[in-house]
């Protein structure tokens, strides 16, 4: 009898747990999982939003995007940002974390705050700051002309290669400190004595960096990599506010192109746009999986 009472108490508690997690779980189901299923269904349809029909052939929207030069260009741009910006940013972030994790360093807090500060800006804000800095009549041009590197003002945002470079520089500026925070947290878990021992063994800074810091931070590195991939594949604010995708769509990102196909200037085409969005989702998933597989080389 008493045992039975105890069981029902446990059951009661377990039920309380379900009630506590129910609102959040339901919200994610309704606001993330269901829209994802709904998006997939929409991606198999064509026509404007009011009267959509099943596409024929059913994967028409998917085959269409691989013949869409503009979409392919947006994919290329996004992957270019990913391939150049993410490695530079992550190496810089680890390096900064390593330097700031030095016991003998003074002004540590000051340096950390400075490097971390760019995270305090909205993505739109820093895009606009960089837009004005790199404008033809902007500060960077004035400086470069005055010190004689440029003979006349250069239209950084009006040329494909330099516009891409500005976006990459801006991204590195905004996100390096953010990633550094993860590495600093990770480094604090590494015993300082490990470094002392390495020093006694005669390892120099470079050797300790590759021999101790990087291997011990591996889980953190994988996580920041996945986050950066996820973020870069969804780039939107910078593309729309810094360059507006231009000149001639040379800097447009996937998310920006998808937006243009729904709420932007072009004709709204929900079916095609969701098909492209689904493609982004699959890319994020594949790259995250590869990352975890590559990272998981224990034993």
């Amino acid at each position, binding site marked *: 009898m008493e045992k039975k009472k105890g069981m029902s108490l446990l059951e009661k*508690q*377990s039920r309380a*747990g*379900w009630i*506590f*997690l129910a*609102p*959040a*779980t339901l*919200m*994610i189901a309704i*606001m*993330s*999982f269901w829209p994802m299923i709904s998006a997939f269904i*929409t991606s198999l349809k064509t026509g404007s*939003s009011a009267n959509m029909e099943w596409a024929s052939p059913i994967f028409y929207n998917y085959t269409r995007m691989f013949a869409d030069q503009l979409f392919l260009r947006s994919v290329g741009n996004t992957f270019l940002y990913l391939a150049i910006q993410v490695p530079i940013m992550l190496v810089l972030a680890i390096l900064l974390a390593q*330097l700031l994790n030095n016991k003998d*360093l003074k*002004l540590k807090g000051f*340096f950390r705050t*400075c*490097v*971390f*500060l760019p*995270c*305090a*800006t*909205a*993505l*739109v*804000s820093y895009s*606009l*700051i960089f837009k*004005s*800095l790199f*404008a033809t*009549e*902007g*500060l960077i*041009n*004035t400086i470069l002309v005055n010190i004689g590197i440029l003979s006349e003002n250069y239209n950084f945002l009006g040329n494909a290669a330099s516009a891409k470079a500005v976006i990459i520089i801006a991204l590195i500026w905004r996100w390096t400190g*953010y990633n550094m*925070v*993860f590495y600093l947290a990770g480094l604090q878990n590494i015993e300082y004595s490990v470094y002392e021992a390495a020093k006694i063994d005669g390892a120099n800074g470079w050797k300790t960096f590759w021999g101790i810091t990087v291997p011990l931070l591996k889980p*953190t590195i994988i*996580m920041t990599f996945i986050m950066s991939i*996820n973020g870069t594949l*969804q780039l*939107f*604010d910078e593309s729309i*506010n810094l360059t*507006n995708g231009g000149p001639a769509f040379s800097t447009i990102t996937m*998310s920006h192109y998808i937006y243009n196909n729904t*709420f932007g200037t072009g004709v709204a085409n929900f079916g095609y746009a*969701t098909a492209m*969005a*689904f493609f*982004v*989702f699959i890319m*994020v998933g594949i790259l995250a999986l590869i990352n975890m597989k590559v990272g998981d080389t224990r034993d």
Partner: protein
Amino acid sequence: MTEKKNRSMIQRRLIPTYIFLAIVSFISVFPFYWMVSAATNTSFDVAQGRILPGGNLGVNFENLIGGQNLWGAMGNSFLYAVVQTVIALLICSLAGFGFELYHDKKKDMVFTILLLAMMIPGVATMIPLFKMIAGMNMLNTVWGFILPAISTPFLIMMFRQNSRNFPIDVMEAARIDGLTEIQIFFRMYMPMMKSTYAAAAVITFMNAWNAYLWPKVIMTDTNAQTMPMLIANMAAGYTTDYGLLMLGVLFCSVPTMIVFFVLQKQFAEGITGAVK
């Protein structure tokens, strides 16, 4: 004596490090200085590359509130961000509490499934969510803004991880004292998890304030627009008054910068919160 010598030698060897950190710090901070400085200059001076602050702040401010619904957008952004933060913290902490302290196999499995939602890009759910919110007549409302964002796997994970520090003995003692499970949550759990709440609040507020794509999709009425939308629209014109624009950017940045400087520790914890 030798130790002192040793110490100065260490500092001398750190000189390249100091130089490198000083350069990186300068690059990190300069755009902020420039934003503030440009906000006080005329568009002409900004285009001339003037670095020093000027005397045009008053004129820029008058033009800004004259030409833009600045206070409206600031108010909207505050309202959306605060409401989202309060509701998200309540719902997600309750879930983190439930997942960790009442955990069993089934709940762990549900949690793992929820984590998959982290991989879903915002742009993929944008169209179905827009239709859903429009169908519920919630365009241009705070509810339309917050509904997709009040339950995130990140926050749930953060509260779940940090709940491991919550002592089981306290729960047992509270039960013996006759507290119900929900009372334990409000009276014991919430006060004890204060620092986790602080970190979660900072990161949620920042994300809500900075959101751009989603409000751009659902806030079709200019009276409902947010600060990031306002400054983005200011910059989208053919001729841009950069002094005026930078003042707008400054207004958009002030709240998040205050949060950053006052609550930097909580902000850092908020970013890394779920990965302990």
